[in-house]
């Protein structure tokens, strides 16, 4: 384990130095793209909301939205909603991960188990997580656990499938080598399959965060009294459109940051180990 950590850190440095040059370029282009998006928003919004009968929606335009966004940042209520939402997402993904990791490893490793479960997983995956909501509300006493259940059930399938796919791509020679050295299946899973699949495991987490963040807001529409979904609904009811739009933007930004954090972890790991042998 210690050497695994050392290994990650060592190679992350190599990667960063070689990418340093293009970094400014990348940021420059990203900034231009963002500016373009805001421009489209501004032009499209101005045109749309200057039509007769739509004037009351002026709050959706960039400038009022930005003002409301600054107000949000100093609003403690907003931050407690962010906290509540992130807590739900984290808990839901953690449960999905704890269940999905062993399941993904095993189905990727044992071809027969994969054959046995493949159809069911594909089927369950196609059910919109939101459609579980009424059932979740019936089964669980609290909204809190119902939402957690929804996030778990939304994210567990991509976790399982991505990890199983990663396992099936593990270098066959490593497996043969370990078998030749006398490894049993359990040791094979623990000492070869698991470390070799780390890149895929991180990928599956990234997918899960993306999905959970999308599912979260509609799930929070359904009656709970905290969280980002709730304050969006609240802003709509009180007709504070600038605040509403600001929350929408904030959801995007937070999701972007969450995704970026995992991407950073991925980058700091070294990808050579998939191709290298």
């Amino acid at each position, binding site marked *: 384990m210690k*050497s*695994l950590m050392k*290994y990650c850190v*060592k*190679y992350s440095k190599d990667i960063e130095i070689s990418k340093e040059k293009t970094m400014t370029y990348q940021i420059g282009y990203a900034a231009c793209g963002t500016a373009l998006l805001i421009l489209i928003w501004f032009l499209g919004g101005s045109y749309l909301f200057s039509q007769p009968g739509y004037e009351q929606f002026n709050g959706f335009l960039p400038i009022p939205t930005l003002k409301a966004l600054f107000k949000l940042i100093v609003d403690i209520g907003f931050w407690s909603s962010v906290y509540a939402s992130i807590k739900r997402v984290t808990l839901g993904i953690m449960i999905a991960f704890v269940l999905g990791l062993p399941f993904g490893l095993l189905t990727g490793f044992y071809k027969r188990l994969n054959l046995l479960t493949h159809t069911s997983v594909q089927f369950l995956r196609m059910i919109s997580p939101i459609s579980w909501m009424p059932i979740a509300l019936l089964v669980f006493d609290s909204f809190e656990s119902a939402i957690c259940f929804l996030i778990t059930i939304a994210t567990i399938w991509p976790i399982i499938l991505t990890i199983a796919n990663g396992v099936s791509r593990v*270098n066959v*020679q*490593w497996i*043969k*080598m*370990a*078998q*030749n*050295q*006398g*490894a049993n299946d359990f*040791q094979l899973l623990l*000492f*070869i399959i698991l*470390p*070799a699949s780390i890149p895929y495991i991180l990928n599956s987490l990234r997918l899960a965060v993306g999905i959970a963040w999308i599912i979260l807001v509609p799930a929070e529409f359904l009656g709970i009294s905290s969280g980002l979904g709730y304050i969006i609904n609240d802003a709509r009811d009180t007709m504070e459109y600038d605040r509403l739009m600001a929350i929408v933007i904030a959801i995007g930004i937070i999701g972007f940051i969450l995704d970026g954090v995992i991407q950073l972890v991925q980058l700091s790991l*070294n990808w*050579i*180990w998939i191709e*290298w*042998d």
Partner: protein
Amino acid sequence: MTIHMKDVSKRYTLPKGKELLVLEGIDLEIRHGDFVIILGQSGCGKSTLLNLLAGFQFPSTGNILINNKPICGPDPSIAFLFQRPSLLPWLTVEENVAFGCKIRGDTHKLAYRVTQFIEMVGLSGFEKVHPPKLSVGMAYRVSLARALIGHPQIFLLDEPLVSLDTFMRNRLQEELINIWLSEYFTAIFVTHDIDEAVLLGTKVVVLGGRPSRIRGIFDIQLPYPRKPTDESFFHTRTSLLKELKASFIENHFI
């Protein structure tokens, strides 16, 4: 450990119900301590033969006995050196070497033994290095140490040196012979290089044809260390080539 292969054949089932008979009628007896070279063209089933011996695959007919017992799966006493070093990149050199011993719970004086084997393959000072930082030749040495630290009785090598440059290959050939002379295992070495065969082997088994059969078994009685520049080496090589040619024409196989 003696190896007996009795009328072994191997048939692969291909998609669409087709079958491919790769090996047929292989009868072979190998005494302990032999250095056997399996020589044959690309695709003639050399790797298949080694996989059968390693217990990764099983013969379609016939049987393989090791000390009069059939093989029932991979076994640490039969070590395998792959065509590529296949080290685990998340482990250091010394952890890679120790990997098998840890798996088997064979940890008595492990650190000492690891140091000893790393020294034997000339990698002292690289214990804490991760494989991606090694050259190909060094990676080979690590995989050699990893395969040998458990003192295998039989050592299977599947074209292990083909991707190396000439200098590195010559050095590793020499070192391999030295290790073999001191460790006294049975080596079964796959190659398609006749020079390598004459340089290393006590016995050359030639495979060929479709499906492959044994086309000839030649003993090489040169003393070690052998030098390609020696006259005796040259003579042996020439006579082996002649015999090869003869046996191939006899078998209507070229």
